């Protein structure tokens, strides 16, 4: 009976596949052992997997049975000792250990189940255990995509950069991405393309060109790579998102230009003409996405404008809305989500563009976001960057953890928000930095791209009396200027309506002073009404009828000290650029509060020793 066994087949199968095909097309082996694997968290729920030991009398090797062969064990056909015909298999070498994947197996029943024959030695390195479904540690990688073969391959444990016997890069060692620096001269990395940008072109007086960039990911980290001009033609079509490649020197490693990337690496790569890029045979040993989650409570310690990843339970989804960007007039689709997590905090997150319009996750699903920008609007809020990605119900430990928490207790929780977080200067969010006039001018508020908001405590010293109001449309919600048709009617172009008289609205310039200087502010209807104490219509009427009374009104309104909430921004007047200060709201002083504030200020000064 021993003669039936194809001795030496195992050795050939692993070390000389061609010979194995010729000499042992259908190896006959003895099954020495059968063990059931309880699957832990290996993906597909409760799949039963069997591992067996097969021997060809010379060697033995550990094998994983493909699920389609499970029936042989269930039906009791495959037992310890019996002889099998291996009809289809795959030989793998995992971390130096040889593993056989059994795709199709037939039990030769006529030979029964003899005792272990011969004295088989382990094939290759001593392997005590086969590759089981390993525990994916929390620092491991997520979402390893199984290759679309007939069976599910065993999950590969986290591989240190090791020599791969698969085809492709033969001799050079694989570097981890974190190890790349300008000092490394010769290296190869094996990484997956997590995102690829479009080809961008630029035309400048200094020259023109095109570029594209990709983000590479491996177990150690991520790095951005850019190809210019010729390299765009060389590599753009070769590199596909989601695929794994070997990239080798020559390839430049430089300090990263952080403003173009959301990755934390200090360095970035630039492709050169001789850079080698090869698609990897083995697409599975590199992680797919790498998350570095910050939990929602920790967000309050994260600085504004930082980029983070978050994961949470989707509590609320708003409808898609469209907003038009003021500067570019382009419409943008946006959608707001509310996420909660097991720290008991909730946060609003905005998603844009296609991600927003195609969003279809249900509340209570788990949403993971990679690459969100933190802003201090409303305390803390998030915005998904265009380079960021979103995953719904991802198959990662954090997601399962959150799901479990939500199902048990989270659903009924009330969540704290960061809204009561004091941003600089007070509880009203961004509008509350109290400044003196000299500070406003010194700090050049309003000269940057974004408008600046501040509070000002100052006295009105002069109100400009010509053109303090404009005729406005009477329609509800419309404040557009109406044209005097000179026949007693006033026409609004926006509403296409005529009114018999306009509703005058203030557009007032006032000069205010404080102990440090003077400033011109412009007020709109609601603020000016507070200052004047009368509506614009009334004042216009006075202008028609009683000019002296009008003058008196202005005098009376003068010299009042108020708290102004202002916005400073730069406007272009033809060729000139000027900073204009607009009043968002004005309020009379609460003397007690102001007095106490001043007291504190004095105490602070004296503590500083002034």
């Amino acid at each position, binding site marked *: 009976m021993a003669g039936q066994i194809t001795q030496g087949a195992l050795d050939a199968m692993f070390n000389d596949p061609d010979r194995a095909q010729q000499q042992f097309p259908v190896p006959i082996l003895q099954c020495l052992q059968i063990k059931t694997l309880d699957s832990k968290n290996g993906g597909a729920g409760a799949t039963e997997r069997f591992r067996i030991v097969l021997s060809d009398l010379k060697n033995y090797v550990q094998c994983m049975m493909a699920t389609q062969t499970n029936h042989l064990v269930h039906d009791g056909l495959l037992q310890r000792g019996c002889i099998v015909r291996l009809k289809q298999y795959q030989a793998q070498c995992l971390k130096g250990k040889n593993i056989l994947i059994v795709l199709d197996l037939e039990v030769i029943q006529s030979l029964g189940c003899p005792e272990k024959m011969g004295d088989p030695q382990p094939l290759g390195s001593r392997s005590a255990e086969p590759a089981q479904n390993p525990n994916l540690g929390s620092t491991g990688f997520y979402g390893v995509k199984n290759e679309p073969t007939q069976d599910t391959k065993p999950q590969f444990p986290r591989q240190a950069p090791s020599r791969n016997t698969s085809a492709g890069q033969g001799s050079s060692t694989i570097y981890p991405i974190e190890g790349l620096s300008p000092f490394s001269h010769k290296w190869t990395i094996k990484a997956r393309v997590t995102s690829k940008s479009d080809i961008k072109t630029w035309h400048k007086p200094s020259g023109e060109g095109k570029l594209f960039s990709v983000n590479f990911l491996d177990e150690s980290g991520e790095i951005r790579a850019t190809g210019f001009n010729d390299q765009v033609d060389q590599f753009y079509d070769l590199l596909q998102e989601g695929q794994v490649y070997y990239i080798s020197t020559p390839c430049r490693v430089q300090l990263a230009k952080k403003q173009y990337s959301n990755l934390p690496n200090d360095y970035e790569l630039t492709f050169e003409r001789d850079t080698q890029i090869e698609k990897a045979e083995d697409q599975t040993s590199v992680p797919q996405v790498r998350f570095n989650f910050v939990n929602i409570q920790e967000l309050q310690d994260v600085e504004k404008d930082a980029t983070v990843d978050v994961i949470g339970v989707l509590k609320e989804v708003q409808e898609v809305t469209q907003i038009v960007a003021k500067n570019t007039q382009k419409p943008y689709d946006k959608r707001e989500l509310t996420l909660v997590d097991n720290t008991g905090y909730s946060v609003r997150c905005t998603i844009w563009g296609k991600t927003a319009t195609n969003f279809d996750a249900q509340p209570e699903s788990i949403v993971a976001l990679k690459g969100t920008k933190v802003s201090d609007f409303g305390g803390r809020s998030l915005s998904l960057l265009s380079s960021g990605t979103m995953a719904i119900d991802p198959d990662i430990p954090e997601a399962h953890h959150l799901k479990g928490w939500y199902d048990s207790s989270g659903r009924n929780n009330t969540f704290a928000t960061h809204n009561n977080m004091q941003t600089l200067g007070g509880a009203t969010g961004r509008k509350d930095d109290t400044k003196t006039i000299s500070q406003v001018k010194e700090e050049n508020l309003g000269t940057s791209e974004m408008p600046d908001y501040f509070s000002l405590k100052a006295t009105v010293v002069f109100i400009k009396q010509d053109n303090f109001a404009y005729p406005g449309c009477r329609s509800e919600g419309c404040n557009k200027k109406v044209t005097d048709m000179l026949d007693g009617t006033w026409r609004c172009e926006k509403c296409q309506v005529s009114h018999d008289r306009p509703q005058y609205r203030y557009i007032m310039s006032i000069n205010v002073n404080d102990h440090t200087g003077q400033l011109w502010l412009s007020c709109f209807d609601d603020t000016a009404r507070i200052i004047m104490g009368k509506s614009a219509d009334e004042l216009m009427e006075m202008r028609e009828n009683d000019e002296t009374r009008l003058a008196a009104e202005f005098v009376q309104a003068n010299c009042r000290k108020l708290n102004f909430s202002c916005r400073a921004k730069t406007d272009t007047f033809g060729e000139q650029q000027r900073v204009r200060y607009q009043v968002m709201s004005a309020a009379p002083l609460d003397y007690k509060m102001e007095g106490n504030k001043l*007291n504190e200020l004095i105490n602070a000064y004296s503590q500083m020793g002034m």
Partner: protein
Amino acid sequence: MDGNSSTPRITCAYLNQYVGKLVTVVGKVVQLRGEEATIDADGTIHAFLNREAHLSANNGVQLIGKVNPDLSIKVLSSIDLGQGVDYNLANAVVEVTHRYKPLFLYEN
């Protein structure tokens, strides 16, 4: 107002520094008895009121008057401040006045 004198704001504790001088006091009316009043300004002060004084108990009051040798005040002018007086703030002002005397007081 004279050009060369000042009427510093004080509380009870500073009375003995300003005997015979004109001072301003902000405090709460504790008791009213005809032309006499008891004022709480971080301590108890006796005030002898004049004809025009129309005070109400428990209201705030600002008095301007001269300090007598017995540390009572002869009131020359009074203003009723009503209910919403922040006495802590008022006292803080007094403290600051005395910490930064040159800013607030004329030194003769």
